[in-house]
Each structure stands twice: as C-alpha cells, then as structure tokens.
C-alpha cells in the first residue's frame, strides 16, 4: 500500500506541468453571516463561482451582487476561516453539480456532496455530467401539453385534483396537516407505475431527524432505489437552503432531458423564501413587502418554470414539480402563498380543521384545483369520478341544512348516508397509496350507490374486503382497467356483476 502511495506521488511530481498564467483576483473587504464584500474582480459574472484563499482552506463563494466597486458573495462552506484581506480568485465557472444515475438512492447536499456515509457518489472512472443550478426553462417550442397522469395513489387527489406529468401542483397547508405525508405517498406510489418517474425529494431547512426518518421510510417502502434526497438541513447555512431547490431542479433536468420522467418535491418553498430574504437583507438589497426582496416572485417562477413536458422531438421527458408551502393559520393570502399559487398549475389545499376532524388526507376539495391535470386523467377515472366533486358539494350543502332541520325525509337521509360513505371512502391512511385501477373500482361502487346499504363507519373494512375480492377472484378485471385505462360497456357490465356477487356475500 505504502509503495502504491509513493508511486502515485512520484507520478504526480513527474507529470507536473508548470502553467504560469495571470489570474483575476480581488480582496475580502468584509466578512460576516456567510456574506462577503469583495473589492476588485471587476469582470466577474453573476452567479460565478469564486474561490477564497483563507488561512486553512480554499472556500467557494457565489457572486450574487455586482456593484460599482465591490462584489457581494455568498459563502458556500465554512465562513469562520475567512478574514478581511484574504485573496479571492475567479474560477470563470458557473455553479453546477455532478448528475447521473449514480445519484439514485443517495442523500446529497445542494453542491452534490454525499451526506449518507455511503462513500463517494461517482467513481474515478465515471465522467458525470455537470448541470448548472441556475438553468433556462424550456421554451414554448420545446414543450407539449401535459397528457400523461402522475398518479399520486391518493383517491381524493387522483379523482378530483388530477396531476399530470410535467405539471406544477402546489401542496399548501398549515404545519402538521400532512403535506409531507402526501408528498411521500406520491413517491411511494410510483413504485408500481408504468414508466416509473425518478423522484427527487428536496428538504429545505428541515431537522436532520426528520430527513433521516423520511429516508428510512422510503427505504422500508422500497422507494429509495428510484429516489434522490437533496437535503439542506436546519443547521446548514442559508446559502444551502437557497440553493437546494435549484439543485433538485438540476438533477430533475438531467433525467427530463434524457427522455425520462422525473418528479421533484420542494419541501418547502416558504423556508426557501425565508433563506432568500435573509441573504438579500445581508447583501443590503432593498426590502419590499414582508421584508422579502423584490425578486422573490422571480426566484420561484424561474425555479418552477423548469418543470415541463418536453415535445417528442426532444425525447418527450418530463419534470413534474410538487412545491410545498406552509401557511400560517390557514392564511393563503400571504405574500409567498399567493405568489406560488399564481405560478403553479393548481393547488392541493390541506386544512387543519379537516385534519383534526379525522378526514385524512385533509384535502379541502372546494379550494383545491388542478388546472391542467384533467387532460392527463385516464378515461376510466374521468368516467368514474366525473361527478364526485358535485356529489360532495351537494352532500355538504345538505349536511349544513340538516343542522337546522328536525325532520328529514327518507330520500334526503339516503343522500346524506351516501355522502358520508363517499367521505369515508376518500379517507386514506399514511403510506398506503392505492393504484389507480383499484381507486376506479372503489369509486365506481361508491358513486353508483352500491355501498349505500352499509354504514359509513363500516366502510374501511368493506373497502378492504372489496378490493381483496377483486384482486383474489377477478384479477382479470383489475388488469384490464390497468392496461386499457378506460371502462367500456362490456367491462362495466362485468364490474357490475362482480359487485353484485360481492354485495350478496357481505
């Protein structure tokens, strides 16, 4: 071994080539809170990577503010070693990170360094592609309409707020309403999906323990093999919080541009905006509403605009984005929530009241919407769940009316019972996503009144038995829905027959 090291050193010394060249340099004038003020470097570019020669090591810095006689830089590493007077060099490179299939199943920081203790991501033989963290979004000609579903495995979402591949669907709600749980279910549900998308989970400012738990859950559910976790934990500097979503997008773009489908979850963009506000204030940029800088809208719009369904000429890949926003006391009219709502193609609104009433996932159907997902929904689901939203709205109206009425006729009672059954059907525990074909079967029975004879509280068991009945005895029907993705008259007849048999037996 020692001989090997000696040989390696000897080779390095022998192969050394002197290449004297003038370097562009500047000097650190001020250093504090992860921000540097640098004099000189008059030719530096925006978002260019700089290198500070501190006493102990070379520290990377990102040029963010280009002023008349100074440059404002964001330290990407340990800033405590940097002192005023240290030399800063240009690298003439934009911030990028290595991307490749080797990232699958790994946990990395926003600069591409492994955080999971599994060793280096790329071997010496690998020649990874380097993707810029800041990249242009595909133009109009490069895109096509969203036309393929991204099944979430959550009945309420797939039926009423369908998400398509290439869409940007916001998950919004107060803390503790199940936003991350929905995102995890989406990742887990991709396991059995056709053309399985690569999932990228970006954790911004989350506790290390929470990230560890998420990674463990994904591992246990067999979802880590096709997932990449980008983590900028609570203890990491604001620079990492700011860069993490862009790193996630850069990784997603690698798969998108290869013609594959990718899904990126930004958990969450509220913290991302806080980090950007902190950096901007430290850089002395002018504060605007709620002290956010003027370009906080552009920050999120340029990030989310990178999600796209590419045209067939460009490989037909897609990048779907599920950004998460945390609201305060359900206020969706705050600055960042309204910004992201207006950027995305719809939102899934999770409500605290529903959550505490036991409706989980706590999706508020009235406030949730998907603007483009409808065209990506399968015909089978469209046929079955087309009237679900209306049925639920009518049920809620009746339920409100019931509070004042003492005597209710049988028809109304039956309608309320059906509404309660549907509400129960839409409840779903964590980490148990259901494939779309099974969702279709359950919703078909519930919406066509086949479950009306049961009590709402029985529905959990009945649903499980019903799905088991189909899977064990009539798998051909389940497979047919999965492959054809639509229900024709013949298939509908078959489903009806099986439901009747099931109802007779229960």
């Amino acid at each position: 071994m020692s001989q090997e090291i000696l040989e390696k050193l000897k080779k390095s010394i022998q192969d050394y080539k002197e290449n004297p060249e003038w370097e562009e340099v500047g000097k650190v004038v001020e250093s504090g809170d992860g921000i540097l003020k640098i004099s000189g470097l008059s030719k530096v570019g925006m978002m260019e990577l700089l290198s500070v020669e501190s006493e102990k090591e070379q520290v990377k810095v990102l040029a963010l503010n280009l002023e008349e006689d100074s440059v404002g830089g964001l330290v990407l590493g340990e800033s405590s070693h940097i002192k005023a007077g240290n030399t800063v060099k240009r690298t003439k490179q934009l911030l990028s990170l290595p991307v490749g299939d080797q990232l699958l199943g790994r946990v990395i920081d926003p600069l591409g360094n492994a955080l999971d203790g599994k060793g280096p991501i790329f071997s010496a033989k690998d020649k990874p592609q380097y993707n810029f963290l800041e990249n242009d979004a595909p133009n109009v000609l490069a895109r096509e309409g969203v036309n393929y579903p991204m099944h979430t495995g959550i009945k309420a979402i797939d039926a009423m707020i369908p998400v398509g591949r290439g869409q940007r669907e916001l998950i919004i709600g107060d803390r503790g309403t199940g936003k991350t749980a929905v995102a995890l279910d989406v990742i887990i549900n991709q396991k059995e999906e056709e053309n399985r998308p690569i999932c990228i989970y970006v954790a911004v400012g989350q506790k290390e323990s929470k990230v560890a738990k998420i990674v463990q859950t994904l591992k246990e559910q067999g979802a880590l093999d096709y997932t990449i976790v980008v983590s900028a934990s609570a203890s990491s500097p604001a620079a990492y919080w700011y860069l993490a979503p862009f790193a996630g997008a850069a990784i997603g773009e690698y798969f998108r541009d290869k013609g594959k489908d990718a899904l990126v979850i930004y958990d969450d963009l509220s913290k991302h905006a806080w980090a950007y506000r902190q950096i901007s204030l430290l850089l002395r940029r002018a504060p605007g509403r709620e002290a956010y800088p003027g370009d906080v809208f552009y920050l999120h719009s340029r990030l989310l605009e990178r999600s796209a369904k590419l045209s067939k000429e460009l490989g037909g890949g897609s990048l779907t984005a599920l950004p998460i926003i945390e609201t305060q006391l359900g206020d969706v009219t705050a600055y960042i929530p309204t910004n992201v709502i207006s950027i995305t193609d719809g939102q899934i609104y999770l409500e605290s009241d529903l959550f505490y009433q036991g409706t989980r996932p706590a999706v508020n159907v009235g406030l949730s919407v998907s603007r483009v997902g409808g065209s990506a929904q399968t015909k089978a689901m469209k046929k079955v769940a087309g009237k679900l939203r209306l049925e639920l709205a009518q049920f809620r109206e009746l339920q409100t009316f019931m509070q004042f009425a003492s005597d209710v006729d049988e028809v109304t009672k039956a309608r309320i019972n059906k509404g309660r059954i549907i509400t129960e059907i839409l409840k779903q525990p964590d980490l148990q996503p259901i494939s779309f074909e099974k969702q279709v079967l359950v919703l078909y029975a519930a919406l066509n009144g086949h479950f009306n004879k049961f009590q709402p509280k029985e529905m959990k068991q009945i649903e499980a038995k019903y799905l088991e009945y189909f899977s064990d005895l009539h798998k051909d029907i389940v497979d047919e829905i999965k492959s054809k993705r639509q229900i024709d008259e013949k298939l509908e007849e078959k489903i009806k027959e099986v439901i009747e048999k099931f109802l007779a037996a229960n």
Partner: protein
Amino acid sequence: MKYKVKDYATALAEILSENKFSDKKISQGLIKLLERQNDLKKSKEIIDLAEFLLAKKNNKKSITFETARELSASQRKTLLKSTEKGDIIKEKINPELIAGVKIIVDDEKQLDQTLLKKINKLFN
C-alpha cells in the same frame, strides 16, 4: 455627515493631481479633516487608495511583489525590469509562500509563481 474611505481617497487623489497646493498643505489639511470627522484611524487606508487612484489616473500601475524572504538586490533589479517609471512598487514578505514570488498588479491581477501554489496544485 460620515464619508467613506473611497470618498476621501478620490478627493485626495484629485487635489494631488491638480498640483495647486504644496504636499505639506494638503497633508495638514487632510489630518485636520480626519481629526474633525473622527476618522483618523482610516488614514492609512485612505492614503493607500488615493495613491492607487492617482497611479491609475496617470496610467501607472500599483505592483506588489510578495515573497517568502526579503529580495536580494539582484532579484529586485530583475523584477523591476518589468515595471515602468512612476509605477507604485510595494514589497511584502509572507513566509508561508516558502519560495518564489507572487506578483499582484492593481489588486486585480495576480501571477503566482510560489512554491506554496505548486505544492497545493500537486496534492489537490
């Protein structure tokens, strides 16, 4: 009103380039001003920057030779060959460089020919 180092230095460089007053009068005036503004501790920074600005105005350069040990007369002569009359020449000793020389021009360009850089390049 508080002034920045750059403001003082620009004013000083302009007044020096005009050649209207004696150096003694200018330095006395500057000290009085800094005293009044409670900015005397910035005087070195102001003078360095003014010198730099003045050189730039006259198309001259500010050149710093950073070495591990003091330059010998012959070494200094060799290095000065590449400079022009009127350039501001500074010498700085930094033992961490081990050997060789680092030439910094106008605080913006650098030619690093030190052993420290070579070693770093070799092992990184």
